[in-house]
């Protein structure tokens, strides 16, 4: 009977899906001899929108474009700025002008020489009011950009601006192909020509983007012959493609990392990596709301929340507790900064000090006849944030705070709640940029509608420190500013900083030469190789 057959088949299939074997140690493969050749196939959820990075704001576009183009500077494996298309640079002692000395002999993928003209063009098109780009802001402080000769570019700023140097990491575009054309209609959006380690070969819409090694790359020819992005919009499908050998690299979810990829069979075929991602998740309080105006209340909320429990419950331990807005392990972060402890008793005391002494019949704290009650908002489609909110809800209930959770679609969360300041608390996340400047999220001038300090944090000392930190190139001085800001944020608790998740990439074991570093694994991509006898594509 057909129905029984289907039923049995389904049973059989579900039984086969769980991989509960205990973690096994991977058999180390010998390093082998570096050889040219083979293709790496990378799974990506999103399709790039345009391969002119100046016009793109999605990560898929920047991932692909990052292999095709170069900036003047780049972050190395330890997230320190080094030269890319610029061999070296000088900053005048007053911090007002930067002189970039460009590499000579670099060629665009079509064979044309790369010169300072390309840099000048890229700057001009970026600040051109007709260019619909998100990246003009960084260059607003620039007073002038000049090219004394073909291999020198001099940038002058109106006042010293520390994030300036990093902003020149943006992709330099080929002037000879773009000048005099409308950039928004340029064919380069689908067929980029860059200077990077891989040159563009083919883009089949909705399916894949294919790049091939640039033999003349100025840092040396990549070992891999091809770099191929496969667009697979579903994570579960991607994981099965990985197991079936259809892709070589993807990011795992915490469940996949912890529970589904520990069998000896899997570990002999793949290598898993783990390092902190450049983002954090927080519970932000609307500081304009009377409920959260008292700093003791915010401290109590953080103390009532068990961050460790969230890291284990939501991320299965694949992350770490967040204390402040900087990436753990970078120079701006103070490793000795103490967080508020998880201490429900102390939290109750602080709340009592702030006037929340009595409890009503449901066990909820009451002050002046009003119960301590608020709603946490979060965006739809992000399960980890919802779970985080639920764990917080349970913990706060224990100290007598009634929390409701509301999940709202992204667009309406922005339009109806955040932009109007119409919220009490929200669980959201930020990406951490390698430069620690906090101006946009924490400066008091950024509290207007559609600006990012939407919780309304205003602290004159933090304002001063942020301005000082971005106004100097002296890293020691900057570090002092950022250490102090962390202290203040721990004291003030405008957010309860919750956690920094881990990035969990997995790569087929035939690729050698991968060196995990603070910057992740892809910093030395051109050095990855597959020994001749293991090459498959």
């Amino acid at each position, binding site marked *: 009977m*057909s*129905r029984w057959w*289907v039923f049995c*088949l*389904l049973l*059989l*299939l*579900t039984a*086969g*899906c769980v991989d509960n074997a205990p973690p096994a140690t991977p058999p180390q493969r010998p390093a082998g001899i570096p050889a040219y050749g083979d*293709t790496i196939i990378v799974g990506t959820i999103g399709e790039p*929108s*345009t391969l002119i990075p100046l*016009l793109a*704001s*999605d990560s898929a*576009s920047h991932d692909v474009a990052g292999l095709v183009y170069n900036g003047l500077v780049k972050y190395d494996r330890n997230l320190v700025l080094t030269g890319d298309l610029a061999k070296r640079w000088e900053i005048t002692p007053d911090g007002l002008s930067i002189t970039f000395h460009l590499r000579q002999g670099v060629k665009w993928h079509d064979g044309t020489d790369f010169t300072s003209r390309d840099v000048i063009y890229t700057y001009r098109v970026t600040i051109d*009011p*007709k260019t*619909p*780009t*998100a*990246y*003009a*802001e*960084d260059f*607003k402080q620039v007073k002038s950009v000049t090219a004394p000769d073909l291999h020198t570019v001099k940038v002058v700023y109106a006042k010293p601006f520390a994030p300036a140097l990093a902003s020149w990491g943006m992709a330099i575009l080929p002037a000879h192909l773009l000048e005099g054309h409308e950039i*928004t*209609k340029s064919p380069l*959006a*689908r067929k980029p020509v860059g200077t990077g380690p891989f040159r563009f070969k083919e883009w089949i*819409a*909705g*399916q894949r983007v294919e790049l091939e090694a640039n033999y003349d790359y100025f840092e040396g020819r990549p070992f891999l012959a091809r770099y191929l992005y*496969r*667009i*697979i*919009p*579903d994570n*579960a*499908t991607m994981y*099965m*493609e990985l*197991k*079936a050998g*259809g892709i070589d690299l993807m990011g795992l979810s915490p469940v996949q990392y912890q529970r589904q990829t520990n069998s000896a069979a899997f570990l002999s075929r793949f290598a898993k990596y783990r390092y902190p991602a450049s983002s954090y998740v927080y519970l932000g309080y609307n500081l304009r709301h009377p409920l959260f105006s008292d700093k003791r209340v915010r401290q109590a909320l953080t103390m009532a929340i068990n961050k460790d429990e969230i890291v284990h419950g939501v991320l299965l331990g694949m992350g770490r507790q967040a204390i402040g807005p900087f990436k753990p392990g970078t120079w701006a972060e103070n490793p000795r900064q103490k967080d508020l402890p998880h201490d429900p008793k102390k939290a109750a005391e602080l709340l009592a000090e702030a006037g929340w002494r009595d409890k009503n019949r449901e066990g909820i704290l009451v002050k002046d006849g009003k119960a301590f009650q608020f709603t946490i908002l979060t965006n739809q489609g992000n399960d980890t944030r919802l779970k985080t909110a639920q764990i917080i809800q349970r913990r706060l209930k224990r100290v007598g705070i009634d929390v409701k959770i509301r999940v709202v*679609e*992204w*667009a*309406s969360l*922005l*339009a*109806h709640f955040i932009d109007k300041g119409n919220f009490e608390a929200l669980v959201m996340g930020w990406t951490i*940029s390698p430069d620690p400047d906090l101006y*946009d*999220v924490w400066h008091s001038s950024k509290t207007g509608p*559609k*600006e*990012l300090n939407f919780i309304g944090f205003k602290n004159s000392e933090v304002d001063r420190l942020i301005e000082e930190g971005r106004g100097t190139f002296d890293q020691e001085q900057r570090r002092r500013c950022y250490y102090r800001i962390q202290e203040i944020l721990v004291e003030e608790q405008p957010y309860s900083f919750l956690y920094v998740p881990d990035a969990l990439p997995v790569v087929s074991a035939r690729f050698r030469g991968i060196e995990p570093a603070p910057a992740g694994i892809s910093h030395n991509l051109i050095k990855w190789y597959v020994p001749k006898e293991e090459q498959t*594509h």
Partner: protein
Amino acid sequence: MLRYLAKRILMLVPLLLGITLITFTVIHLAPGEPVEMQLAMNPKVSKESRQRMREFYGLDKPLHVQYISWLNRLAHLDFGRSFAPDNRPVLDKIKERLPVTISLNLIALVIEFGLAIPIGILAAIHRNSLLDKGITIFVFLGFAVPTFWLALLLMYFFGVKLGWLPISGLHTLGSQHWGFLQRTWDLAKHLVLPVAVASFGSLAGLSRFMRSTMLEVIGQDFITTARAKGLPERTVIFRHALRNALLPVITLLGFSLPGLIGGSVIFETIFAIPGMGQLFYMGVMARDYPLVMGILVIGAGLTLVGNLLADLLYAVADPRIRTR
């Protein structure tokens, strides 16, 4: 007949206009704008660049001005340029995805009708038997099982465990260098799972419909007459009953015309098939107004044409309607 046809076609114009007006308004009512969806929460974006982008897309103008300029372009068969960062013509974006969706839907449609009609007939002839009940359970299982779940199980079983079929996508890597036959075979293998899942899910509706119309016809007097004449059962069923029972199915066929260009998001996402469903979904999520409007207009046009065709075919197939 000709006058009737002309009247029907003329009626299509205001209908289509009304549809565009309503959809245009509704999609602009949804919170968020393309610029917001692209740039919100990006620390690097200032108010000025936001404003600059709004002007670039023409979003700073009043809604009716936007609608009229959009309509004006449409009158010249120009669907405009996408509001996504790539800023490509909407028609190009639709064109590169349409062939995949149409061919996939056509194959699924043929299989669906090819299976559902015999199944329906079989169930009707053996009404209330064990076979009928078995078929009912089978088709409703297909109706009830979530597509994504079934798809994942099949992918795991046939793709990972057995390794017989590819898991997702449309082509094997490097297949562009193969011969035509090999490429076709490769494509066919890629299509087995998607087509199977797609048609399994839609068997129920059509086969139940076929079963009930068949039962209705079988119960009528002329069938009794045919049987009384001593015609063999085969002739009764296939010559007399089936022909009449198929008439309503023609209407259904007409209705499935617009479905040919629409794809299911879940289904395409799971199988990584670059079809119209994904395009439309991403367009909506990014508030890419010209793209969404473009797809909706084509869809609405096809729905109207499909209805018209169904009516006409009905008239062709059924003399009773023609003479009226």
